[in-house]
């Protein structure tokens, strides 16, 4: 069985194979800045978690190029069905860091009203960044339904469903790819193969020769792309998106990359990731790769990195402070949004909860650490 060929655009030394990137210098720098903002967000969350200010976070080191490259191929009228690790897509499209930080703190300004764990974002503006769920894979088939609606209405929008190597074993992957291919839905399936599902390496996840090849089982094109190459990912997603916009149906893209940190702040990857593997991938750091590329275009200097990163840290620090200073959600948020209107039994239960809280004074939040 021959796997799909691995597509790259940026050579390891920073040179590019194509002439017309379809991106202005400003846009290229937006991509670069976004990657640094993801790192800054990561670094800040790690500190917040270690100091007990937030319960949990998900590191993105190593996978920023995949996220940002994919995001850069989308229009604001497209829908993103993200995974919990897709910080880069959110930041790229202008979702404010402070909005994301409110979610990390689960406070009253959190768009999810403090109901979900950190990193379970939900935004409708400036792009549909659909409410993230913990159960793996459920969103993949949902993206197909949303795309079907676009198709029926004759819109030229697409839905992007983003998931991990582990996600390919889920029910939603199987039903999602199958339905999309039969219905020729305008969906792009982006499998971020970062080599691990928590501690499970890809070879225990599937015996297939990579993930792009799984497209064959559903009768759709499969593309294997270097996930540490922002431009290659962008190009692949653009191609798949165009294909979808033309009514030709879905594509499965495998972006081969590497999760350079733990699965989450609760995880210790040294228990299961071989050191050599980390060393090998460290050489392929997507940020360095993009810097070399920008350097060749005279768009980059060491100073710029420091400046962008510091700016990002400052921005995110402000965001974190604001989020930390924001009050907890009100008690009523436990009872609202279960249904469009609060039914009688929930009104009664809410009333009782208020009475208990009033009688005893509000209890303090437990600060139990979240295991994974």
């Amino acid at each position: 069985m021959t796997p799909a060929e691995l597509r790259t655009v940026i050579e390891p030394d920073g040179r590019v194979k194509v002439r017309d990137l379809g991106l202005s210098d400003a846009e290229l720098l937006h991509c670069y800045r976004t990657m640094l903002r993801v790192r800054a967000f990561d670094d800040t969350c790690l500190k917040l978690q270690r100091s007990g200010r937030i319960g949990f976070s998900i590191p993105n080191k190593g996978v920023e190029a995949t996220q940002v490259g994919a995001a850069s191929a989308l229009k604001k009228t497209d829908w993103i069905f993200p995974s919990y690790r897709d910080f880069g897509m959110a930041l790229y499209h202008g979702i404010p860091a402070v909005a994301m930080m409110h979610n990390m703190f689960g406070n009253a300004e959190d768009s999810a009203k403090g109901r979900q764990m950190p990193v379970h974002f939900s935004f409708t503006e400036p792009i549909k960044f659909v409410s993230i769920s913990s159960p793996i894979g459920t969103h993949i088939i949902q993206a197909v339904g949303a795309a079907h609606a676009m198709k029926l209405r004759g819109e030229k929008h697409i839905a992007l469903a983003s998931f991990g190597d582990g996600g390919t074993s889920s029910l939603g992957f199987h039903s999602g790819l199958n339905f999309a291919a039969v219905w020729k839905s305008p969906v792009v399936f982006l499998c971020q193969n970062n080599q691990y599902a928590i501690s499970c390496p890809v070879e225990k996840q599937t015996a297939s020769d990579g993930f792009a090849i799984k497209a064959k089982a559903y009768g759709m094109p499969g593309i294997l792309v270097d996930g540490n190459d922002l431009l290659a990912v962008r190009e692949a997603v653009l191609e798949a998106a165009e294909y979808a916009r033309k009514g030709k149906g879905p594509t499965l893209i495998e972006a081969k990359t590497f999760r350079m940190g733990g699965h989450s702040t609760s995880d210790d990857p040294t228990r299961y990731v071989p050191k050599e593997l980390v060393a090998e991938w460290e050489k392929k750091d997507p940020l360095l790769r993009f810097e070399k590329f920008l350097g060749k275009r005279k768009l980059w200097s060491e100073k710029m990195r420091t400046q962008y990163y510091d700016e990002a840290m400052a921005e995110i620090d402000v965001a974190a402070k604001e989020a930390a200073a924001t009050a907890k959600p009100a008690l009523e948020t436990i009872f609202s949004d279960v249904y469009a209107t609060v039914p009688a039994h929930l009104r009664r239960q809410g009333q009782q909860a208020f009475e208990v809280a009033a009688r005893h004074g509000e209890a303090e939040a437990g600060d139990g650490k979240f295991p994974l």
Partner: protein
Amino acid sequence: MANLTLIQAVNDGLRTAMRDDKNVLVFGEDVGPKGGVFLATEGLTKEFGEERCFDTPLSEDGIVGAAIGMALNGLKPVAEIQFQDFIFPAFDQIVSEAAKFRYRSGGQYTVPMVIRTPYGGGIRGGLYHSQSGEAYFCHTPGLKVVIPSTPHDAKGLLLAAINDPDPVLFLEPKALYRAVKGEVPEGKYTVDLSTLRTVREGANVTVFCYGAMVPVCQKAADKAAEKGVECLVVDLRTLLPLDEEGVLDAAKRTGRVVVVHEAPRFCGYGGEISALIAENCIEYMEAPIVRVTGFDTPFPNTLEHHYMPDERRVLDAIERVASW
């Protein structure tokens, strides 16, 4: 007005909704050219085209998951699950996703959608074509669960479900599909998703039931009346959210309660009714709150008539609480 069977009323409801709103789509296994294995969707592909009534691959996870996506993006999906017994591959999509989307997104994303599916025994379907799974879903905040027992309600509740801003599981008592007939108004009307239906007035014993158990309880009540025991028979019809006030009222009016359903007893829906009463108006109770239900076993085939509550078992319970 037309005199329709329950299944015809469902078909009429779907047709009415599809005529009314082009965003309404009907899909599932075999619902297209075949018209559904019970013919609930007969003629819809013909009238509305393949785009609006169509067959799907054999994946309930896919059917419900895709419906959620459609609902997120402005369509009004009405998905059919061929038998309620086959809904479990979609259980995750229903309880983890459809039921929680509004809540977890702070109201930003909502999934107004309907899942229709035939449930219950009476057709010699054995373990997997006879089950009554309502309790699984009624324990799931964020869902609505509806069960009609008359053609009039079948259409009116279905149209209300399709109009509803929240996901609704619409369980159809397959034993009644062709066993009951009744007047059904033409065109659009809705039956509110939060009211009980008083099937029959009576001062001695209150009988709570729904779906295919309604005619069974009606007959048992008639028999009881011959013996001088008058029953207040209540069709719950919207199981979640339940009209709890209505239930407590009806219970208080007689002080003697029987709860009837086909599903297994343990942790079944009837337990919730008993518990509500025991918690809120036990002081009115003059007798044990008795449940008449399927047994705590899988659903058998050849002996299903012993398994399903019938007139005799309901009557036994009525007499027991009446004479307590």
